């Protein structure tokens, strides 16, 4: 479903992603783990047509995201690291606009919206503006929206950041259910190792733009002789904290956190 070969992205002198290769099979849940600034989000942006790779090859369902841009876009749904809902609109309106963008026929659109909002337990609140939703509800709505056009692949970039354990647990249960029901391939990133271990069939660990290990959670633990995935992760990526310069977006992210009504 996703095939990546020798993918590289450089920004000036900085190499954010450095010759990575991996494959994600259809219907698989694949976790992409790494410390801050390791290149996870940059990779997702290249897979989802938002950035052009400097070098290397990407195939999404057999298509090239740099050439067949819109065809590729129809095939995936994405939940970004930062919020992307319209807070003034209701949950239903957010879904409906998404349906219009992806040209989902009106009748089918209404059916899908109801099904997904019910699954993510938001149907009762469909006519409430999103600004009155909690962080967990917003996340669920974003995932439901990403699935509205029945994509083949769902990208989740740190979807559980800032959510409590109950909400995280529920969210992964629903994602796993959809993965089983609709055979949607899931590509996720997270900082919570136990989540990755629980839902992902295969994991790739990325550090300094390179993939340092790949395999099932079990294989990664065996490889490093660690008892938990978290220990395996630390063994592979070291325990030093990554220094990252704040970018304009990081500064705005701080402001966004301050102003967001939870």
């Amino acid at each position, binding site marked *: 479903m996703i095939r990546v070969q020798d993918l590289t992205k450089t920004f000036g002198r900085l190499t954010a992603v450095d010759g990575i290769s991996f494959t994600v099979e259809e219907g698989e849940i694949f976790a992409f783990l790494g410390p801050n600034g390791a290149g996870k989000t940059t990779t997702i942006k290249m897979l989802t047509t938002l*950035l052009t790779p400097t070098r290397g090859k990407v195939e999404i369902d057999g298509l090239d995201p740099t050439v067949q841009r819109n065809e590729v876009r129809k095939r995936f749904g994405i939940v970004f690291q930062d919020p992307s809902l319209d807070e003034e609109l209701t949950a239903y309106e957010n879904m409906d606009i998404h349906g219009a*963008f992806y040209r989902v026929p009106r009748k089918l659109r209404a059916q899908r919206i109801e099904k997904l909002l019910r699954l993510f337990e938001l149907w009762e609140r469909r006519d409430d503006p999103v600004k009155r939703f909690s962080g967990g509800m917003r996340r669920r709505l974003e995932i439901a929206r990403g699935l509205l056009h029945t994509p083949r692949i769902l990208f989740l970039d740190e979807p559980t950041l800032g959510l409590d354990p109950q909400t995280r647990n529920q969210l992964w249960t629903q994602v796993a259910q959809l993965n089983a029901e609709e055979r949607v391939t899931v590509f996720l990133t997270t900082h919570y190792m136990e989540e990755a271990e629980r839902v992902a069939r295969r994991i790739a660990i990325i550090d300094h733009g390179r993939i340092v290990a790949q395999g099932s959670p079990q294989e990664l633990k065996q490889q490093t002789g660690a008892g938990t995935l978290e220990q395996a992760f630390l063994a592979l990526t070291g325990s030093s904290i990554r220094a990252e310069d704040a970018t304009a977006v990081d500064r*705005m992210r701080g*402001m966004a956190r301050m102003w967001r009504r939870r």
Partner: protein
Amino acid sequence: MNIVYVLWLRQLKRYLRSRSRIVGALGQPLLFLVALGFGFGPIFQRAGQGNYLQFLAPGVIAMTILFTSIFSGIELIWDRQFGFLKETLVAPVPRLTIMIGRTLGGATVAMLQGLLVFGFCALAGFRASGLGAWPAALAFMALIALTFTALGTAIASVLQDFQGFQLVMNFLVMPIFFLSGALFPLAHVPRALAIVAGLDPLAYGVDGLRSALIGVAHFGATTDLAVLASLSAIFLALGSYLFSRIQL
């Protein structure tokens, strides 16, 4: 086409739902209208220029449209990182369509806000020259709204964060407003000021509105229309180009 409509409708809904924003954006124009209108009225009259409120009202309406338009363009900075714009940028929709829908929506909102201030001007005693004034006045309002929403989008497409916003307000938007002749007649001003005003897009908007509403013009309605129409086309093209180059 349907997508342009959806985007346009979205901005209209957002506008109609945020009462506090509507009221908040009324404060400044009303202050200008009341404080300057009634404050300078007697002096204006004594200088033999007639009724100041009649003269000022089109300027205040133009100012409302200017601020609302630029703001809806600038909002893009926030929107592309923490808002709905990100969702539109990964959708299988051409960037141009998104830009057009957004700009038309922003311009419509700015016009509505302008019409609201128009109503308050009428309450304060402003009288347009007659019903025939309406089509031309609406056309000029639409052109002002389009021009500055597109300009705001163009600026926001190259700004990284809000640090630059203050700069834009102080060194672009405020001068555009104060030098446009919205508050004073451009006839007989010093030559330097006349030249600067001649380069100010809003000067033609204010002048056009004034010619439509009270039949007084400095540049003349035809010139105003020609300049504004070409500028709005140029800014739309520029905005579309810069918008299409946005990277997340």
